[in-house]
């Protein structure tokens, strides 16, 4: 049944819409990407670009107002959207781990940390209470929490923010997932704790060999840990490629602008920080033109009438843009 040649995760044409009182919002528009086993993909983009919604759509963890309206999600070749409820729960429980942005609110305040880990182990690994407890302590140790046996009986409010995020990671890793989806896991933490968490994930990845999707708006983090980068803008992928190649020759004007917004400490310091002029479009309708065109210095007339498809630029790197940064001309596609 399991297709061994298929990538770990294969997403094609995924579309998610939010139904709100003031009309529909097209948050995710025809997203396609693949993730190989053991690969770490960084997903970057500004707030509202649809990064989180895309990843929540994969396992159908969307809020009630959101609906997946199209596309296909294959996990090891199995169609996730066509799964029965039980199969989906099994997939979420055993094969995929999630770490969310805010460790202060992501744990249930009224249950002990131990219970929140063992609950998953007992349901999906068929462990007894005692076995699950041993494994839970092992997991807390793995994520670097000292005195894990004793801390199992502590409540989330007795942990600091960074420690809670470690607990979240322990929960995510409980059943040896093949895929870890980390939704801005370090955004709510201060910088030193951030570095510790990144170091921890990098280390665990080596040990456990799982595919990781790391959502962030911090390009520095991506440069440090990712194999591949996906850049999202207005609910679509505008550029993706291997991390070195993408940083060395960014193709999309948005990616280039994002890289320029990073403050530099070497060389001449400019007076002001770089910003990208303008606002992202509102997504009341599915875009029929390039969503970045109104903010783009290189926009052609064609960009206003047609939404660019993704063009392969070699080396596993592709971009959804007509403009060729090397010639300054329109691509011949």
């Amino acid at each position, binding site marked *: 049944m399991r297709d061994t040649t298929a990538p770990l995760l294969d997403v094609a044409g995924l579309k998610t819409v939010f139904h709100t009182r003031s009309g529909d919002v097209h948050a995710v528009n025809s997203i396609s990407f693949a993730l190989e086993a053991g690969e770490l993909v960084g997903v970057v983009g500004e707030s509202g670009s649809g990064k989180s919604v895309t990843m929540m759509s994969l396992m159908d963890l969307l809020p009630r107002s959101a609906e997946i309206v199209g596309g296909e999600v294959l996990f090891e070749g199995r169609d996730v959207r066509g799964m029965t409820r039980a199969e989906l729960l099994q997939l*979420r429980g055993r094969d*995929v*781990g999630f770490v969310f942005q805010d460790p202060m609110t992501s744990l249930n305040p009224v249950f002990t940390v131990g219970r929140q880990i063992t609950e998953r182990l007992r349901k999906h690994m068929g462990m007894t209470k005692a076995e699950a407890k041993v494994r839970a302590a092992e997991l807390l140790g793995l994520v670097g929490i000292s005195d894990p046996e004793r801390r199992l009986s502590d409540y989330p409010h007795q942990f600091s923010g960074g420690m809670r995020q470690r607990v979240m990671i322990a929960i995510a890793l409980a059943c040896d997932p093949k895929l870890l989806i980390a939704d801005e896991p370090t955004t709510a933490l201060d910088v030193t704790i951030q570095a510790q968490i990144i170091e921890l994930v990098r280390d665990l990845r080596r040990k456990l060999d799982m595919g990781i999707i790391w959502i962030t708006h911090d390009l520095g983090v991506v440069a440090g840990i990712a194999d591949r980068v996906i850049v999202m803008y207005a609910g679509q992928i505008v550029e993706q490629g291997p991390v070195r190649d993408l940083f060395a020759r960014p193709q999309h004007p948005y990616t280039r602008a994002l890289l320029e917004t990073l403050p530099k400490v070497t060389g001449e310091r400019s007076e002001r920080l770089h910003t990208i002029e303008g606002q992202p479009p509102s997504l009341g309708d599915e875009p029929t033109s390039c969503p970045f065109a109104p903010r783009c210095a290189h926009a052609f007339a064609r960009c206003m009438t047609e939404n660019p498809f993704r063009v392969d630029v070699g080396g596993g790197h592709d971009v959804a843009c007509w403009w060729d940064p090397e010639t300054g001309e329109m691509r011949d596609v």
Partner: protein
Amino acid sequence: MFAFTIRRLLFAIPTLLAISFIIFAILDLAPSDPTGNLPLTIPPEVRAQIRSSLGLDEPFPIRYALWLNQFFINEPLNMIEGWTGWTIGDGERLRVTSWATRSPVVDLIVERMPQTLWVVGMSQIIAILIAVPIGVISAYKQYSWFDQIGTFVSMLGFSIPTFFTGLVFIVLFSVHLKWFPSIYDTNHVIDSWSSFVFQIKQMIMPTMVLALATAAQLSRYMRASMLDNLQQDYVRTARAKGLSERVVVTIHVLRNSMIPVVTVIALNVPTIFGGAIITEQIFRVNGIGQLLIIGIQGADIPLVQTLTFIFAVLIVMFNLIADVLYGILDPRIRYE
């Protein structure tokens, strides 16, 4: 937690003393006359003798001190003697006595208590059993037809007073359908299956009237609290762990949502005695509420004082119980 409870119990003593003084003083200021219901043919000097035999010619502070002594020392000692069979001292002490019936007030209350506890206690349990599932489903399926109907019915239950629903119930179920008796028979003895069925039948209407009023209110609290919690991040975490919706809602969300609702339930218990006054009148349940009404009408001040004070004790007690429950349910709150 234990130290907290003890401290709160100690704090309750001055509070209750202050309440007892206020109750005593206000009732003493009332212009009612315990001899007012006696025939007009009784000569004034006999009336004065009756009044002095009730202790009414003593000054206010002395009467208050005597009442305190009777209520806080004599009555508890008497109760201990009753339970254990011991005799403390000479066993002879003044008790708080009803002016109307000349029997000790505490005995009257003990006599009336079972009826009230049956009806009121049952109605509370039924109210919780109705309200919690309705609140949970309403919130989980917000704006569904179930939620809409639930909202409408609880608005009705909220806004229609029990004396109206009580009468509607009597007209409908007793007069027209003849399913249940309209008058509660306090002397009914349960000694067989059929008499047990009769007891259930006579309890249904007063219990349901009270239960519906309470359930209407509770289900709203439950719904609001569930809605708050369903949006929390930890719910998404629970789902991401591959837990079924049933486990997510009935274990993770419900436990959190119960925290404020349990407080409301606990604080509701003493006020339901107030609501029961009217319901007991309608269905002729010889409970505490009815005793209070009789006491007020007959200017039976010791009876009214004692009952009012017992209500005050209940309120203080259940406030404490609510706080303790809060600490048990929510680990973030620990009283030191």
